[in-house]
C-alpha cells in the first residue's frame, strides 16, 4: 500500500461520500429534527416544533409497546431459526456428494427473491380456502378443518415468521459454509487423535474456528430482519388487529398515512436500539480494517 502523500485517494472516494452524505446523513439529521415536530403532511400548515411531545405520545402509545415486543419475537425466532437451519444446511453442503455445486446454487434462490414475491407466495400457500398448507395438513390428518392462517390473530405472527426464516436460511448457509471451508483439516485430525467423537469435534473445533463469522452474520441478520418491512407488509400489512405489526411496519404504516413527525420519532428509537447491536459489529470491522 502506498503511503506517499497524494490527493488521489480523496478524489476517488469523494463521489461515494457525497452520495452517502446526501442520501443517508442528511435524511438522518432531517428525521431527528422531524421527530421534534408536529410534521403531518395532511396538515402542512400546522408543522411546528413541539419539543418532546411525539416522544411522550410514543411512551403512552400501547401500539408502540406491543409492536416493540413483537419485533423482539420476530427477531429472536426469525433469526434464531434462520441460524439453526442455515448452519445445518452449511454443514450438509460442506460434505462431498454428487451434484453439490448445483444444489448449493439452487438453495440460495430464496435469498434473491424479492420481499413482495415472498409475501405473495406464502399468502397463497397459507390461503384459508384453496391453500396448499391446509390441504397437506388435512391429508396428513393433523387438521380436521381448514384454518385461515393469516386472518387469525393467533396464527398470523408465527406464519409470517416462517416466511422470514425461509428467506434468511440461504444467507446464513452461504456465510457459514465459506467459513467451514477454511477450517484447517489438521485441527480435526488432531482432535481425532485425542479420541474426540463427532459431537466433541463439532463443539471443540468447528464452533471455535468459525466463531467470528457466526457473530458477524448474526449481527447483520438481526439488523436486517428488525428493519424488514416488505415481507410482513405484503402478507398482512400488520394485521389482523395489529397482530403482525412489528415496529418497522408500524413506522411504515404511520409514514404512509403521512404522519412523518411521529413516525420519525419511533424510527429514531428503533435506530438507537439497533445501534446497541451494531456497535460491537462496527468495532470488530474497525479492528479488521486496521
Amino acid at each position: 500500500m502506498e503511503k506517499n502523500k497524494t490527493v488521489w485517494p480523496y478524489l476517488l472516494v469523494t463521489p461515494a461520500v457525497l452520495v452517502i452524505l446526501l442520501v443517508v446523513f442528511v435524511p438522518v439529521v432531517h428525521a431527528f429534527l422531524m421527530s421534534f415536530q408536529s410534521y403531518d403532511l395532511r396538515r402542512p400548515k400546522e408543522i411546528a416544533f413541539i419539543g418532546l411531545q411525539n416522544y411522550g405520545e410514543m411512551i403512552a402509545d400501547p401500539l408502540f409497546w406491543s409492536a416493540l415486543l413483537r419485533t423482539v419475537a420476530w427477531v429472536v425466532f426469525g433469526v434464531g431459526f434462520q441460524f439453526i437451519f442455515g448452519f445445518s444446511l452449511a454443514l450438509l453442503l460442506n460434505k462431498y456428494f454428487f451434484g453439490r455445486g448445483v444444489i448449493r446454487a439452487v438453495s440460495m434462490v430464496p435469498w434473491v427473491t424479492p420481499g413482495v414475491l415472498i409475501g405473495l407466495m406464502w399468502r397463497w400457500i397459507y390461503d384459508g380456502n384453496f391453500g396448499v398448507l391446509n390441504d397437506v395438513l388435512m391429508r396428513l390428518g393433523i387438521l380436521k378443518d381448514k384454518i385461515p392462517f393469516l386472518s387469525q390473530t393467533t396464527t398470523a405472527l408465527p406464519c409470517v415468521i416462517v416466511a422470514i426464516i425461509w428467506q434468511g436460511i440461504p444467507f446464513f448457509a452461504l456465510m457459514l459454509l465459506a467459513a467451514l471451508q477454511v477450517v484447517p483439516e489438521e485441527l480435526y485430525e488432531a482432535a481425532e487423535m485425542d479420541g474426540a467423537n463427532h459431537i466433541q469435534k463439532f463443539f471443540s473445533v468447528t464452533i471455535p474456528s468459525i466463531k467470528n463469522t457466526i457473530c458477524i452474520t448474526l449481527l447483520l441478520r438481526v439488523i436486517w430482519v428488525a428493519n424488514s418491512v416488505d415481507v410482513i407488509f405484503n402478507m398482512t400489512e400488520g394485521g389482523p388487529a395489529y397482530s403482525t405489526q412489528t415496529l418497522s411496519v408500524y413506522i411504515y404504516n404511520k409514514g404512509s398515512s403521512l404522519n412523518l413527525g411521529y413516525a420519525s420519532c419511533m424510527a429514531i428509537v428503533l435506530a438507537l436500539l439497533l445501534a446497541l447491536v451494531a456497535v460491537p459489529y462496527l468495532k470488530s470491522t474497525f479492528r479488521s480494517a486496521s
Partner: protein
Amino acid sequence: MIHAHEHRFFTLFLPLLLLLVFLLFPFYWTFVTSVKPEAELAGPVTYWPKRITFEAYSKLFTTTVNFFSAMKNSFIVALSTSVVTLFVATLASYAFSRFKFAGRKFLMCLFLSNNMFPTVLLLLPLYAIMRKMGLLYTHTSLILSYTTFTIPFSVWLLNGFFNDLPMSMEEAAMIDGCNRAQAFIKIILPILTPCIVATGVYIFMNSWNEYTFAMLFTNNATRTIPVALKNLIGQLGVEWDLLTAGGIVTIVPVCIMFFFAQKRLVAGLTAGAVKG
C-alpha cells in the same frame, strides 16, 4: 458398506432433502399455480395441473395490468443504479485497497455503518427531500436511493477483489511508462471485469427487488415490478393464476443473472466475513 450407506442417508441425504423441499417448494407451487387453468384453482387442490396453460402470462401483458411498462421501469432503474454504483464503488474501493491515507479507517466504517440505519428512518425524510427537489415519482429518486444502499456492500466486495490482486502488476506497468489511470484501465480493469460484473449483478438484483422505497417514490407511470405486483394483489385479490405468473416473470431475470454470477459473488461476499 450397507451400514455406511444407511449412515449417509440419515446424516446427509434425508436432512438435505427436507431442507431443500422447504426452500424450493414455494417456487414449485408458484409455478404450478401460474400454469393451471383458472377453474382448477378454486376446486380441490391438485399438485400437478390437469391441463397446462399459459393464459395467465398473456393476460399479464395484454390486459389493464400493464406489466410490461413496470418491467421497463425496473430495467431502467436497476441498470442505471448498477452503472452509477459500480463507477462510484470501483473508485472508492481502489482507493481503500491501494492507498494508505488519513481517514481511511473512518471512511470505511462510515461506508459500512450505512447499512445499519433502519430503512424506514431514511425513507420518511427522503420522501420529504425528494418532494422538495421535485424528484418524487421520477426514476432518479429511486436510482439515487438505491445507489446509496448498494455502495457499502459493493465497496466491500470490490475491495476484496482488489486486495487479491498483487500491486506488482500495476507497478510494473507504471515503470513501463503508464500513469496510474492508464495502469488501472489497461491492467486492472480487464482482469477484474468478471468480478465487477458479479458485483453489478448484486446491485441489479437489489434494485430490481426493492419494494419499500419504490412504493412511495413512484406513481402509475414510473412504478417498478415489485410495486406492480403488490398492486396486482390489491386489484385482483384472488386471481392467483395471474399473481403467480407475475411472480415468475419477476424472478426469472434475477435467477438467470444470479446463476451466472453466483460463484464469484459468493466468493467475494464471504471473503471479508471469513477473514474478519
